[in-house]
């Protein structure tokens, strides 16, 4: 049935409520910092200074954000179809092959702008393939994607260890990683972009894949809200019975959506491999697939929400590293706690403050202009 709460102005719904949730998350996080015996204000200052205070910090923040935009979009696309793709981590990991193999093969004779499109296609294709199997199992066999995608994370992990240790590791090397790519296997950094604001990104690996992430966000918006396929995906997500009533081929939509989701997660591999380390290392995904879930939740599965949410989490990663460096009392785990609180308040407890805010705005509009007529909910 319809919710008993009346409609709020859009800026409250999409601006004020997330901000309040965020503020409460930081307030509680501040209490935790206090309990450890450090000053929450100083921690907050360090966090913001570390993430946005200087060019290199911003570069790192946006580098992390790039990862999270891709994985956040991946989770969001699946959400729109009512699927919970927890496998972004594994899909991105395996998709590393789609990036690294073209680089290893082509970097001797092709320029980066030839290799980049090949790597995009490669990462998307491998990621899509890795997500297609759980999608197919869900559509045809009814095996729940939550279970199968988790399983596929583990399979991906073992597979990649094998690939890196036994296949791709150069002879004589001790480290489980590929050789470093030649210069044409490396993405240009976006130092000029920040330089135009008078900032120097220093050693930060902020690179071209950030722009690709923004393009992907736009494409996701177009596909979900402006195409027939997106319409069918959303119908499935909101109401599978309505989808079968409308004659929408459910299995096909599930498989296609999972492949789109996997392709987006897969493209995340471009950023660390081609943009930063210039080789494929063990465990290069580093949890970004799971952060994507939080980003999608917080961004309400909408690209316009996902990009800022990804930047927020980029800030927590970068600023958090800075805090743990300056305040030895606060370990990396504390940063995970703060991230957890953000997820808790922004994602899980999203409706906590809504009734109070709605009542507040109802009283406001009750006094002044005419209130919008809203049909009663019984």
């Amino acid at each position, binding site marked *: *049935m*319809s*919710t*008993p*709460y*009346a*409609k709020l102005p859009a800026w409250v719904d999409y601006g004020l409520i997330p901000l309040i949730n965020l503020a409460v998350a930081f307030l509680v996080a501040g209490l935790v910092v206090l309990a450890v015996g450090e000053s929450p204000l100083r921690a907050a200052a360090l966090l913001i200074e570390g993430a946005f205070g200087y060019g290199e910090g911003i570069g790192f923040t946006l580098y992390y954000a790039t990862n999270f935009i891709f994985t956040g979009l991946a989770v969001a696309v699946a959400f729109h179809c009512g699927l919970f793709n927890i496998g972004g981590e594994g899909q991105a990991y395996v998709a590393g092959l789609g990036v690294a193999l073209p680089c290893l093969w082509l970097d001797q004779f092709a320029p980066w702008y030839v290799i980049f499109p090949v790597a995009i296609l490669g990462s998307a294709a491998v990621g899509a393939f890795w997500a297609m199997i759980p999608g197919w199992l869900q559509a045809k066999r009814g095996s729940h994607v939550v279970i199968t995608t988790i399983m596929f994370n583990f399979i991906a992990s073992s597979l990649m260890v094998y690939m890196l240790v036994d296949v791709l590791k150069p002879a004589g090397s001790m480290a489980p990683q590929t050789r470093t790519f030649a210069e044409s296997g490396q993405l240009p950094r976006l130092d000029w972009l920040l330089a135009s604001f008078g900032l120097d990104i220093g050693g930060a690996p902020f690179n071209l894949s950030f722009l690709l992430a923004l393009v992907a966000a736009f494409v996701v918006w*177009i596909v979900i809200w*402006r*195409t*027939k*396929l*997106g*319409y*069918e995906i*959303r*119908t499935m997500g*909101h*109401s599978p*019975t*309505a989808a*079968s*009533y*409308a*004659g*929408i081929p459910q299995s096909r939509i599930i498989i296609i959506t999972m492949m789109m989701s996997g392709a987006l997660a897969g493209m995340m591999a471009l950023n660390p491999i081609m943009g930063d380390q210039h080789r494929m290392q063990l465990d290069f995904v580093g949890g970004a697939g799971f952060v994507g879930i939080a980003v999608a939740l917080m961004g309400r599965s909408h690209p316009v929400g996902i990009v800022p949410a990804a930047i927020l989490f980029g800030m927590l990663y970068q600023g958090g590293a800075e805090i743990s460096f300056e305040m030895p009392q606060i370990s990396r785990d504390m940063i995970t706690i703060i991230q957890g609180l953000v997820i808790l308040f922004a994602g899980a407890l999203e409706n906590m403050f809504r*009734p109070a805010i*709605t*009542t507040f705005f*109802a009283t406001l*509009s009750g006094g002044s202009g005419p*209130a*919008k*007529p*809203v*049909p*009663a*909910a*019984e």
Partner: protein
Amino acid sequence: MSDIAIELKGIDKKFGLVHANKNINLSVRKGTIHGIIGENGAGKSTLMSILYGFYQADNGDIFVDDRKTVIRDPNAAIAAGIGMVHQHFMLVENFTVLENIMLGAEESQVLNKGITRAREELRRLEDEYELEVDPDAIIEELPVGLQQRVEILKALYRGAEILILDEPTGVLTPAEADHLFRILEQLKAQGKTILLITHKLREIMAVTDEVSVMRRGEMVATRTTAQTSVEELAELMVGRRVLLQVDKGPASPGEVLLSVENLTVRDGRGVDMVKDVSFSVRAGEIVGIAGVAGNGQSELLQAVSGIRRAVKGKVLLQGEPIHVTGKVDAAELRHRGLAHVPEDRQHMGLVLKFDESENSILGYHDDPKYLSGMFLNIDAIRKDAAAKIEKYDIRPPNPRLKTANFSGGNQQKIVLAREMERDPAVLVIGQPTRGVDVGAIEFIHKRIIEMRDAGKAVLLVSVELDEIRSLADRVLVMFDGRIVGERSPDTGEGELGLLMAGVEDAKEAAE
């Protein structure tokens, strides 16, 4: 002691901007049956939920037996002697009757003593009110009428003096409903007070002593039932005069457009829900399928409209076979001229989170006129939706409003506009006016007759016998998955009611 059982003074309740109850005053005399009617969204359920402690009123007082009573939760309501029989039963399906009645009133951690006491008490209640039920029967094996009786016993077991019944006859056959009313009379005779919430005017007239009418959150009138009429009550509910009887000329049936032969449909549990059913619908006629909910009508509708696969049988649409036993495809049937208004508009016919214009293309979203290439043509879709909104008087007239924010009647109009405007050859409609307000019912019935007069074949399924009788040209009665008889719509309600209950020699039995 006064003779007022419950008095509500100035009850006010808001949900955000929605003013569900506005300064409601109501007094219910002890030992009477008091009806409360109103359209969907008029605030009846909210008011009863306040009385039973599900919600707290923002303002106003409740007096039970002249004592001001604060009802914070259902336990407080039970303590004050108020019992409620919900529209959707709150029973544990795989417990016995006795276990259900004891649930929440077990008295101690060890059940033995409680069981003995409950059994005695139950026997006493059964004797006193003629409410016979086998205490050891499992709930899910009982017919709906008996399940409802268990709900009533549950309330009485907890010492209810005041009984609230929310739309109690929605799931009952006419005979079961009559039995229920006899029970209510019995309870009244024993001094209990009964609040009956319904949107069926006939029931109000038949059984209540007094009736209060709600409209848009306000209590607009209270009448003594004997001194009012169906017409007056309908007018009070809607706020304007309504036509209760449908004007309809004789049918002029043409060729057969839909024919169903030996159709058998199985549900998810593997039970045959439709058993060897055959019938046909011709151009320019309305064939009504009457029956109590759950006798296979839903499965029949779904099989015919390509949503559920049939086990065996044949369906011909405009003379061409539909592949009903194989991989059926609702989209293909639409292209072949079958439009379907589903029984469950909220889950099947509409996506409530979509805006109105998005729902106005559901199922027809592959029509090139709504697309440009693989992209949706948003302009064309909104324009098309706006035209339908105007033609079907859908309110508020905003194609971008979220569908959940439309009232039940307007939601149904969105579905009807979508399906009827495609100019189908066959129109299959399930429960066209379920949860729809009186004003919209009139409109919907007119549109259905217009479709018939335009030469469409209309298959109508409804659990409202009145609706079937006033719309259909032929009535098929379904019981336990079979069509147990065909009658003309002028057949007496008693005879149809018996058929619906599975008595095949209905004519003799009715006499």
